[in-house]
């Protein structure tokens, strides 16, 4: 599996995980919210009925003394939007199924009356203690699965607490199933996407292999003719003496030799074995710029540098040197104004930037990283391979690079 395929797989699986997690989170939160709202409706209804549903089965009064009891007739299962289904708030079964208690407290917060007590999990004493501790908020959850509501009536404070454990249990199950399903989906998507990725990337890899093979073959096909042209040029000069034509042939052979070397690099990199090590990119860049100082001067260009000390990178030193050389070579070919090179560390990234004036239209120009691509009026000797080689090096180091032109200033930015 190559780097691109690995990145695709990691990104795709991460996307599946995030999407599914968000979806399941929304479902579970919605479910929990609905349970809370249902509990609130029940506590509100009980509170509105002065602390109880009315008459309990068997004729035992559950109503607070002195309060009126709501009539129990006219049950409509779709009332309240049908949220309770057949167990709607008007259901005669609700009284038998809801587990709750209502405690009345006086001004001092002391329990003065048990208005209703239809619950087994809590003793009446505990219920009074709970009620006394819950008066600070109007409504909320207490002791895990209990929803409560605090109301004022007749100079007393009524605390109604409803046990929602039975309603919450399915939602906990859904939560656990969601979590397990999420993990399973990620595992399954990993294997599915791995298979899909292999099929998806096969043509791209084949195209890349073909391109490299073509370049390698082209490189080899150039080598012998160049050798023969070079030898015959020497023989011509020996016979007739050097002239403008033979000198021109030599120059062109030199250019072609450069192209051949670049083609060789393109066809081999990054397959050729990199030997990563901790190297000082500061030193490499300074050394490359020092070596090119005369060529910049010959072109009438000055070079401004802002190179931070000891910017080290874990990469193939030869590739880093080649990258610096190619950036300088590019500036030498295309710059129309002075050149700037900046190198610094920003967080855990290394930023290498170069700017120069270039006769190019404004806007992003990342296509210059494509092989054999030059922009504007390419100068003599431009092969369109230098920055393509830089791109291969940067990507092999998991870096990013961008290029753009703003107000006639060409900027190239590499983040390693």
């Amino acid at each position: 599996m190559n780097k691109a395929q690995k990145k695709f797989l990691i990104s795709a699986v991460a996307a599946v995980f995030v999407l599914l997690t968000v979806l399941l989170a929304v479902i579970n939160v919605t479910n929990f919210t609905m349970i809370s709202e249902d509990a609130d409706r029940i506590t509100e209804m009980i509170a509105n009925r002065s602390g109880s549903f009315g008459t309990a089965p068997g004729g035992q009064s559950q109503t607070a003394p002195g309060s009126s009891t709501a009539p129990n007739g006219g049950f409509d299962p779709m009332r309240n939007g049908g949220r309770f289904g057949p167990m709607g708030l008007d259901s005669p079964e609700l009284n038998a199924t809801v587990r709750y208690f209502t405690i009345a407290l006086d001004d001092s917060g002391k329990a003065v009356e048990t208005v209703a007590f239809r619950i087994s999990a809590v003793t009446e004493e505990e219920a009074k203690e709970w009620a006394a501790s819950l008066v600070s908020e109007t409504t909320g959850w207490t002791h895990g699965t209990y929803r409560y509501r605090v109301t004022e009536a007749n100079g007393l404070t009524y605390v109604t607490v409803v046990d929602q454990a039975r309603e919450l249990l399915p939602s906990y199950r859904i939560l656990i199933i969601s979590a397990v399903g999420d993990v399973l989906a990620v595992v399954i998507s990993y294997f599915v996407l791995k298979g899909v990725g292999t099929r998806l990337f096969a043509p791209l890899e084949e195209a890349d292999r073909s391109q490299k093979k073509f370049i390698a073959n082209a490189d080899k096909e150039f080598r012998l003719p160049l050798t023969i042209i070079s030898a015959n040029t020497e023989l011509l000069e020996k016979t007739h003496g050097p002239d403008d034509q033979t000198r021109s042939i030599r120059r062109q052979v030199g250019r072609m030799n450069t192209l051949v070397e670049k083609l060789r690099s393109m066809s081999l990199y990054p397959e050729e074995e990199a030997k990563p090590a901790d190297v000082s990119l500061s030193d490499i860049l300074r050394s490359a710029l020092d070596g090119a100082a005369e060529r910049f001067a010959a072109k009438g260009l000055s070079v401004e540098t802002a190179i931070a000390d000891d910017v080290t990178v874990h990469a193939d030193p030869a590739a880093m040197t080649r990258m610096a050389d190619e950036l300088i070579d590019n500036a030498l070919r295309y710059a129309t104004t002075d050149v700037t090179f900046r190198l610094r560390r920003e967080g855990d990234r290394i930023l290498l930037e170069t700017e120069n004036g270039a006769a190019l239209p404004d806007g992003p120009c990342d296509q210059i990283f494509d092989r054999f691509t030059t922009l504007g009026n390419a100068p003599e000797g431009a092969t369109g391979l230098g920055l393509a080689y830089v791109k291969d090096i940067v990507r092999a180091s998991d870096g990013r690079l961008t290029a753009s032109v703003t107000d006639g200033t060409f900027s190239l930015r590499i983040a390693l």
Partner: protein
Amino acid sequence: MRILLAAPDRDLLRCYNIILDEAFGETVTAFDGTHVLALLADTDFDLCILDRDLPRVGHAEIRKKLAEKGIPAIVLTNGDAEQDASPEALPEALVLPFPFSPDEMRAAVRLATEKGTEPVNDHE
């Protein structure tokens, strides 16, 4: 010095025949492996310059013959200099990858005949 120059390309043979003749003396050319073996059988050479892609008889067999006769060799390659320079691939060979200039060829000949035939890559 008598040099055997063996390569399948006749243009290369023609121009380097002249260049090597002028620089080192007699140069004999061959364009395939069979021709090389025939020449080695009845002529003494001080050096053999051999294209790695010589047809009919592989360069390995020819180099074995050269080793038997104690003739140093320069192997011309198509850019796989690093591979070819390994002692396992071309023991005691001097590798000269295409493209090279006449100056590089002359330097390689001098190196091969004066300093022996340890593997080097003087193109890079």
